């Protein structure tokens, strides 16, 4: 019998191998005669390089090579990774060299690579490489970097402005001129790392006989990696393959193509042996991209009833030292600033500042958390100033369900309209408030204060653009073995992609997920691919899989009709075979295995194909989905603040979220909760410190605080399902959603708890010492 699997919490197909320790992550791959790499990295945020002496390192037994950019050049068409997303707003091209030449611009920038028998020896030798540095002044804070006379991040630049753009609509001056109230805020959100528990890694192998270069890489975007390598190495696509093994988390930074991917590839050709590089955690802290440093100067104009008339302001965005992705982050930030609210007039200026820090690219949330934090801080400000309930101010400004789809007169980075496709934002807020006991909270708060306890409640709404297009390729193929094979350019980074695709495909083929195998992230298996980012795969790959599976199912039924000599409408796929449906009083045992159909369609020399059909039992789809689907939701958080230590404990956390139709509720829960954990880190724990010279201060996991099980509250989830009208499955993305409202809701709650001290918080994260300082200020007469 055919089974329904779409919408069910089926067990994940990924799990058994992972639970048995049989999965194959990048460092689990070992090739014959493989050698290992360690990088020599800049200890300076900015310095000239006068020379590199690798003599002692080369002399160490077990060392095969020490390579600098001079050694790589003969193998490179260009020594730069040109990866910036297109934009007319760039004022400088700042592409990363594969290895630094005569200037290093951030701590951790790779300068040379040691190739040795094993990683131990490679690290021994890397210590022996002597680099003659000429330390230069560094730009650390992105606001200072834009000031007149600031140290230049790159010596050949006239200033540190990488790009600038404006975005807006409506008559902003009129809106502010007519406003009953105008409030200004300066809001800061700090950066953090991705800290997938598996760091990055790459293994390159070159076969001189066939001149084939294969790169295994822990990447969210193998096809991008391939394209960059093709450009840089001047090789043909058919001489290169990029494969992703099991990936131990991505969270954004693994979507970037890195210098190490290129260097390892060239090194394998130079030394004539497979080369493995596994990033260690200290490297991850200094060499893997980070995100979120932004400084917002904003004003909100409201009428006498707290209805928004306009938003305006500016953002300074820390871009880091190079363009490793583009202008996408502050674009996302500015574009999503209005959030789920009606904003009649809007004007933002955005500047991207180069700094002598590791490049900045998306980390889970990608510009959205900063925007959500800022608008929610403003909503709280309006409520406080006007003496209104914080929920009520939001209620008066939320876009209503009947106004969906709602067009915001803004353009995405690709020039497309911003259309909020579906959702019921007021219901999201109301349901989560009810679940969290918002209306009863003031009484509880008073009682707690009488006991000397300071509890507070806060809320934040969010919308998050997901499912960024234009497409993700999926092939569905029934093999002569009878198994269903699914191939996609998307990669599986822990988000359950294989299960998701297996569910979608199995749904069309009789529901037998056991008979479906999913291959992700292999450029040899899928011709076109974009990859995993922006909570996009369920939307774009899911839709291609859905359409492809439907076509394969139709074809299989038609062939079966021919083979079984039965009308198509009498047939049914049960996962491994097609049979004639039972009728009342009559059980049919007429069936044909899918494998037999695939055999028939594989063709036999000299014989016609059955039914006059085209060959094969497969379909490849690239369904074009340009417009983003907008997921949405509300977080309501209750905290207790120890006013003597500044410590914050989260007592209750309600998250209502809407990612359209849900394919696997269990996986969606996991994504929402995991994203929330990341957001709690951004609000209270994760601080990636740099000093004024651009030296990173927190480069181990004892100093950089990831949330552990003892700090993490149980998340109380509410699911809403507003189907997206933009794709046949009605789905939206969920991977990044949890992170977006967390800082806004938590900081709102902390501020509420500390209301007796008049505390106002304008930044995230906030630490106990900072909270205590605010309390002390508030206590002062």
């Amino acid at each position: 019998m055919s089974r329904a699997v779409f919408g069910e919490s089926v067990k994940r197909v990924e799990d058994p191998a992972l639970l048995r320790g049989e999965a194959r992550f990048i460092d689990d791959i070992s090739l014959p005669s493989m050698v290992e790499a360690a990088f020599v990295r800049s200890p300076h945020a900015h310095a000239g390089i006068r020379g590199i002496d690798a003599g002692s390192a080369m002399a160490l037994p077990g060392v095969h090579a020490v390579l600098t950019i001079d050694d790589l050049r003969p193998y490179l068409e260009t020594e730069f990774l040109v990866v910036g997303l297109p934009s007319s707003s760039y004022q400088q091209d700042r592409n990363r060299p594969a290895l630094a030449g005569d200037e290093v611009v951030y701590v951790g920038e790779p300068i040379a690579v040691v190739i040795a028998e094993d990683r131990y020896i490679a690290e021994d030798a890397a210590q022996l490489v002597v680099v003659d540095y000429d330390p230069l002044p560094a730009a650390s804070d992105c606001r200072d970097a834009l000031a007149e006379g600031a140290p230049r991040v790159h010596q050949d630049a006239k200033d540190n402005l990488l790009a600038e753009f404006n975005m807006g609509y409506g008559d902003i001056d009129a809106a502010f001129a007519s406003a009953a109230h105008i409030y200004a805020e300066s809001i800061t959100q700090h950066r953090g790392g991705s800290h997938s528990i598996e760091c990055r890694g790459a293994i390159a192998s070159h076969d001189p006989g066939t001149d084939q270069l294969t790169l295994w890489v822990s990447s969210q975007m193998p096809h991008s990696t391939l394209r960059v390598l093709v450009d840089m190495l001047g090789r043909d696509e058919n001489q290169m393959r990029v494969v992703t093994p099991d990936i131990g988390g991505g969270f954004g930074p693994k979507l970037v193509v890195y210098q190490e991917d290129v260097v390892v590839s060239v090194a394998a050709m130079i030394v004539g042996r497979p080369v493995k590089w596994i990033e260690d955690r200290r490297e991850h802290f200094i060499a893997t991209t980070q995100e979120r440093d932004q400084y917002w100067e904003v004003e909100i104009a409201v009428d006498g009833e707290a209805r928004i008339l306009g938003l305006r302001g500016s953002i300074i965005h820390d871009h880091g030292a190079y363009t490793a992705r583009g202008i996408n982050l502050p674009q996302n930030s500015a574009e999503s600033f209005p959030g789920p609210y009606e904003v009649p007039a809007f004007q933002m200026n955005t500047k991207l500042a180069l700094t002598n820090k590791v490049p900045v690219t998306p980390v889970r949330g990608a510009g959205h958390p900063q925007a959500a934090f800022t608008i929610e801080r403003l909503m709280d400000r309006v409520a406080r100033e006007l003496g209104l309930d914080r929920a009520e101010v939001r209620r008066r400004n939320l876009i209503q369900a009947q106004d969906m789809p709602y067009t915001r007169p803004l353009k995405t980075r690709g020039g497309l309209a911003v259309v909020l496709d579906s959702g019921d934002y007021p219901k999201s807020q109301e349901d989560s408030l009810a679940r969290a006991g918002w209306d009863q909270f003031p009484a509880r708060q008073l009682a707690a204060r009488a006991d000397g306890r300071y509890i507070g409640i806060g809320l934040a709404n969010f919308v998050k653009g997901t499912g960024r297009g234009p497409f993700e390729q999926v092939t569905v193929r029934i093999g002569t073995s009878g198994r269903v094979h699914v191939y996609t350019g998307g990669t599986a980074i822990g988000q359950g992609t294989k299960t998701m695709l297996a569910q979608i495909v199995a749904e069309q083929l009789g529901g037998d997920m056991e008979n479906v195998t999913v291959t992700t992230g292999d450029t040899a298996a899928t011709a076109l691919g974009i990859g995993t980012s922006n909570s996009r795969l369920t939307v774009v790959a899911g839709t291609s899989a859905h359409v492809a599976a439907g076509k394969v199912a139709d074809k299989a039924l038609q062939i079966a009709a021919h083979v079984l000599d039965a009308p198509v409408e009498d047939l049914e796929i049960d996962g491994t075979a097609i049979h004639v449906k039972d009728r009342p009083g009559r059980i049919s045992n007429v069936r044909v295995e899918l494998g037999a159909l695939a055999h028939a369609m594989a063709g036999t020399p000299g014989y016609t194909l059955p039914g006059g059909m085209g060959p094969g039992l497969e379909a490849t789809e690239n369904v074009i989905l340009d417009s983003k689907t907008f997921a949405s939701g509300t977080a309501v958080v209750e905290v207790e603040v120890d006013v003597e230590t500044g410590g914050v404990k989260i007592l209750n956390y309600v998250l209502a979220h809407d990612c359209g139709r849900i394919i696997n509720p269990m996986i969606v829960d996991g994504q929402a909760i995991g994203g929330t954990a990341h957001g709690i880190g951004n609000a209270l724990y994760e601080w990636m410190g740099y000093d004024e010279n651009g030296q990173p201060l927190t480069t181990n996991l004892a100093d950089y605080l990831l949330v552990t099980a003892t700090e993490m509250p149980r998340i109380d989830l509410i699911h809403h399902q507003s189907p997206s009208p933009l794709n046949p499955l009605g789905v939206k993305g969920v991977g990044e959603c949890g992170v977006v409202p967390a800082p806004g809701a938590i900081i709102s709650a902390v501020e509420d708890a500390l209301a007796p001290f008049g505390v106002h918080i304008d930044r995230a994260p906030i630490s106990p010492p900072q909270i205590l300082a605010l309390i002390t200020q508030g206590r002062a007469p």
Partner: protein
Amino acid sequence: MKPPPFTYHDPATVTEAIGLLASLDNAKLLAGGQSLMPMLNMRYAQPDHVIDLNRVEGLSAIREAGDGLEIGAMTRQREVEFSDDVERLCPLLHEAMPLVGHRQTRNRGTFGGSLAHFDSSAEIPTVCAALDAIVRVQGPGGARDIAFKDFAAGYLSTSMGLDEVLLSVQLPAWGAGHGFGFEEFARRHGDFAIVSAAALLEAGPDGRITRASLTLGGIGSAPLRMAPAEAALVGAPGSAETFAAAAETCRGIDALEDIHAPAVYRQHLAVVLSRRALEKAWSRMDADKGG
């Protein structure tokens, strides 16, 4: 992040270990490895020789000695955590042990290793300071006892000689029914404390405090006994006012400043956590046992 090259030694006796220490340049003792191994992996420590104490006999035991406990240097923190003798005779230590790192590090980490590493924000040195522990060490010239007040020699450094091995620690027990309280503020469970406070109290039948010990960890380069607070406590009645006043004497102390907290924050926590530890200790006084 792989350890640098070194020559590995695994002596079977203390004498052998001391001999190696005395004869080798740039040698490091390896106990449970929970501090040294990360430093090796990060190459912050690059010794030419590593002398592993894990095969040395006779260094891991918890036993009653005199009026207290003797804990062998190589006793795993886990053994201390689950020891009934520790709970009975040194309940302050029993209370602090679950805060030492995590289960996996306590399974391997040793009591003596934590002391020898001497991170002032670690719980074990703070408890030892509170209890006036006596550290027994042995060098080429024989064994000697170091009173805990003389054990510290600066940040992450002790008064042990470079050729001395830590043998055991004697923890004098306080009177039956004494009050004890360990309080710390750490960012996450299992993290090193930003500040910790350890308090011990005994009182007479009249409710007046007869003996007091108050120690702060994480404030300076070593755990600090708060003599002014202790002096203020002895003779005073056990009351909220007494404890608040005693804690207040901690406010002016010099405090560390690092990426986790400015000095002023540590100074503030010193007062808050002292008061809480004292109140907790007082609440645990068992009057029936004359505490």
